[in-house]
């Protein structure tokens, strides 16, 4: 590719006619402008003759100026590469460092496959891609400025990293100082753009040629989507984007074929050993972390659980297991003699009691029964980094299989079935009725608990979940938010069984994820005609509420129900804990944690962003009819919000 700093004027692209006149006007001296100004104030006369200077300015050739145009910038080729990767969307807050690709995507690329999503914050862009993946099962591309944009995006990248979600991040940068034109471009350039997020991305590259870009872009996609899946970063140099690419040079460039790697399954010998331990166990129990990557993952987990009659303890990181299944939630850690952890990032935490929240340190004690064995199948064992500590405590286990759990399940199920003798089958089937009874009692207890505070104001989170369920249970629905902050009520009252019924949580518990992840997931649901439901925490929304506008602008149908408890409530409880520990001021925990005085009017906020809204609703009897009206809006293809003033949890 030609890389002259001053490209010769491309007269083919020079606009003639009216544009030439405009260019001349720009170049005119001040005196001529003054003359014109004077002429403006003359009494109007029909068809006035031009003045001498005006005539001269319009007939004299303009002074020579360098004009840069091109029919084929390097960014067009980058778009050719991007299109081979099959992205539906690219999310971006506009930034000068990737203006070349931006223009190529919308004009050369036709703003289709990928279509550009207008985001109002880079944290929103990344979290939208995060939520989108959890429904669609493939990455969304994100563009961001290599410096200030990436700084905005970084927390959301860490969430995606901890949640094992592939996000394809393209950064703009002007690598070579000789090409930077201003203090702005110097301030917005960086020697090693990806360095800031290298601790929580899987791979990055800063190619220095278009050929290198093509190979790295394809390689990055493969790396991101191979378990353990993680975000990647590709830096698109601005000079490569904007400099022309001749047809001859374009003909020399190749775009490598993308071949995705199969997910790593467990070592056969180790899997056989795991099967032996599970089949011979009296009370095997499965802890499900990020197991189901695809719809098949749910089916496989059901098969394994039913083969062993092993209850499932679901961590709610993914839609892993049907909540109405008699094995769902029917087990306990302390009751198990063999525990199988599938894609559980911190198995230690599951096998030990937690140190009380108001104490530091490691006082936790093992809660498994004496002699209980622990097996893990975990892709995280294949990929470790040091700085950020999301890997958790060291797991003391009896058999650790470094592999992707879903890819390993077919072999494990086969091996278990081979080992089940008639005697073992009788034992296994013998525990089915008992586990089903535990599951039934759990549900009965949940319903009884939901009745408490049923008529209370603020609205109880159980009532909110029940009112929502009543409206969506006959629809094709998808919960595009987490369960943690509403006491898991949807998980306790709704029937989750389809892969898109639930998207799991943050990953790294970085607040601000909720709203944009919900918008991204709802976008993925859009083409399937699903009703996306987002139970939206108030504190979370206030990080980057502009994503509401993105939902409205792109006509993303989704029902947003505000869980408006008017506080960063987890932190409020923590400060309360600290005050009780320090034996002072337990009445002052709201300072710095409450979001009140004034109360935020989320219905008004949604309206300001162009979204249908109602509320605030604090009478629980008003909630059902409001949800019904909002769903009618959603069914028309628009987002809607109901602001509900809620109980804390």
């Amino acid at each position, binding site marked *: 590719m030609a890389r002259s700093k001053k490209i010769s004027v491309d007269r083919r692209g020079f606009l003639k006619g009216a544009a030439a006149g405009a260019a001349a006007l720009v170049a005119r001296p001040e005196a001529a402008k003054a003359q014109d100004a004077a002429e403006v104030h003359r009494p109007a006369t029909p068809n006035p003759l031009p003045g001498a200077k005006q005539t001269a300015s319009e007939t004299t050739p303009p002074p020579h100026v360098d004009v840069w145009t091109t029919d084929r910038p390097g960014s067009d080729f980058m778009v050719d590469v991007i299109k081979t990767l099959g992205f539906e969307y690219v999310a971006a807050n506009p930034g000068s460092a990737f203006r070349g690709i931006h223009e190529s995507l919308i004009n050369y690329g036709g703003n289709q496959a990928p279509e550009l999503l207008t985001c109002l914050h880079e944290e929103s862009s990344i979290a939208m891609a995060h939520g989108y993946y959890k429904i669609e099962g493939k990455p969304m591309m994100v563009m961001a400025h290599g410096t200030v944009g990436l700084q905005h995006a970084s927390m959301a990248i860490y969430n995606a990293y901890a949640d094992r979600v592939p996000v394809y991040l393209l950064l703009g940068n002007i690598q070579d100082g000789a090409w930077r034109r201003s203090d702005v471009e110097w301030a917005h350039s960086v020697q090693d753009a990806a360095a800031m997020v290298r601790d929580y991305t899987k791979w990055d590259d800063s190619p220095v040629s278009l050929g290198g870009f093509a190979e790295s872009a394809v390689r990055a996609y493969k790396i991101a989507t191979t378990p353990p899946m993680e975000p990647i970063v590709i830096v698109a140099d601005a000079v490569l984007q904007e400099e022309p690419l001749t047809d001859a040079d374009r003909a020399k460039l190749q775009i490598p074929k993308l071949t995705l790697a199969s997910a790593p399954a467990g070592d056969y010998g180790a899997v056989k050993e795991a099967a032996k331990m599970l089949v011979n166990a009296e009370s095997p129990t499965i802890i499900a972390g990020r197991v189901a990557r695809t719809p098949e993952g749910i089916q496989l987990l059901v098969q394994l659980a039913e083969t062993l009659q092993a209850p499932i303890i679901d961590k709610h990181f993914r839609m892993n297991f049907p909540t109405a299944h008699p094995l769902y939630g029917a087990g306990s850690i302390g009751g198990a003699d063999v525990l199988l952890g599938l894609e559980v990032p911190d198995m230690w935490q599951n096998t030990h009691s937690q140190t009380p929240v108001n104490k530091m340190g490691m006082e936790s004690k093992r809660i498994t029964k004496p002699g209980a064995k622990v097996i893990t199948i975990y892709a995280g064992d294949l990929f470790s980094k040091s700085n950020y500590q999301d890997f958790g405590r060291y797991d003391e286990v009896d058999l650790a299989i470094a592999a992707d759990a879903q890819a390993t399940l077919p072999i494990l199920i086969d091996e278990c079935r081979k080992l089940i003798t008639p005697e073992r089958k009788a034992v296994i089937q013998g525990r089915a009725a008992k586990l089903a009874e535990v599951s039934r009692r759990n549900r009965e207890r949940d319903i009884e*608990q939901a009745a408490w*505070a049923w008529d209370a104001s603020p609205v109880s989170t159980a009532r909110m979940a029940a009112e929502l369920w009543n409206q969506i249970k006959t629809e094709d629905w998808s919960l595009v938010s987490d369960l943690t902050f509403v006491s898991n009520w949807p998980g306790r009252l709704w029937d989750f069984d389809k892969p898109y019924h639930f998207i799991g949580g943050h990953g790294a518990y970085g607040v601000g994820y909720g709203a944009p992840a919900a918008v991204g997931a709802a976008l993925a649901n859009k083409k399937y005609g699903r009703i996306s439901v987002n139970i939206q925490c108030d504190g979370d929304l206030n990080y980057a509420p502009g994503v509401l506008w993105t939902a409205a602008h792109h006509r993303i149908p989704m029902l947003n129900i505000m869980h408006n408890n008017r506080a960063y409530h987890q932190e409020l409880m923590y400060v*309360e804990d600290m005050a009780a520990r320090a034996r002072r001021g*337990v009445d002052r925990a709201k300072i710095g944690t409450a979001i009140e005085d004034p109360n935020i009017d989320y219905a008004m906020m949604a309206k300001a962003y162009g979204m249908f809204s109602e509320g605030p609703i604090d009478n629980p009897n008003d909630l059902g009819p409001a949800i019904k009206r909002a769903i009618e809006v959603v069914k028309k293809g628009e987002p809607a919000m109901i602001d509900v003033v809620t109980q804390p949890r």
Partner: protein
Amino acid sequence: MKRFFLLSVFSAATLIPAMCQNGDPANGKKLFLRDGCYECHGYAGQGGAAGARIAAIGLNAQGLIRYVRAPGGQMPAYTDKVITDQELTDIHAYLQSMAKAKQPKDIPLLNALEKK
């Protein structure tokens, strides 16, 4: 107050002599809100993921005091420096004044879930 685990304190509670006067539920309500009991247990004492239900429980005032001073689980201890026995007695009176939940069968939305 947080995360009551009531079964373990029932027997201990009955051994403690009455040490406080009868509680004032109106003052108890003020204290319930002022001292942040609602944060984990809900404004209606209904409980949730962060704390157990404490509305209309069968624990007497002495049992409540005993538990709050030396709780189990995740609840922090509240000493008499931050909340007195009399104040806890008032809170207990307020908790006892709270209405019990309806039966799920009397709530159409929950009745529908029960019948499923």
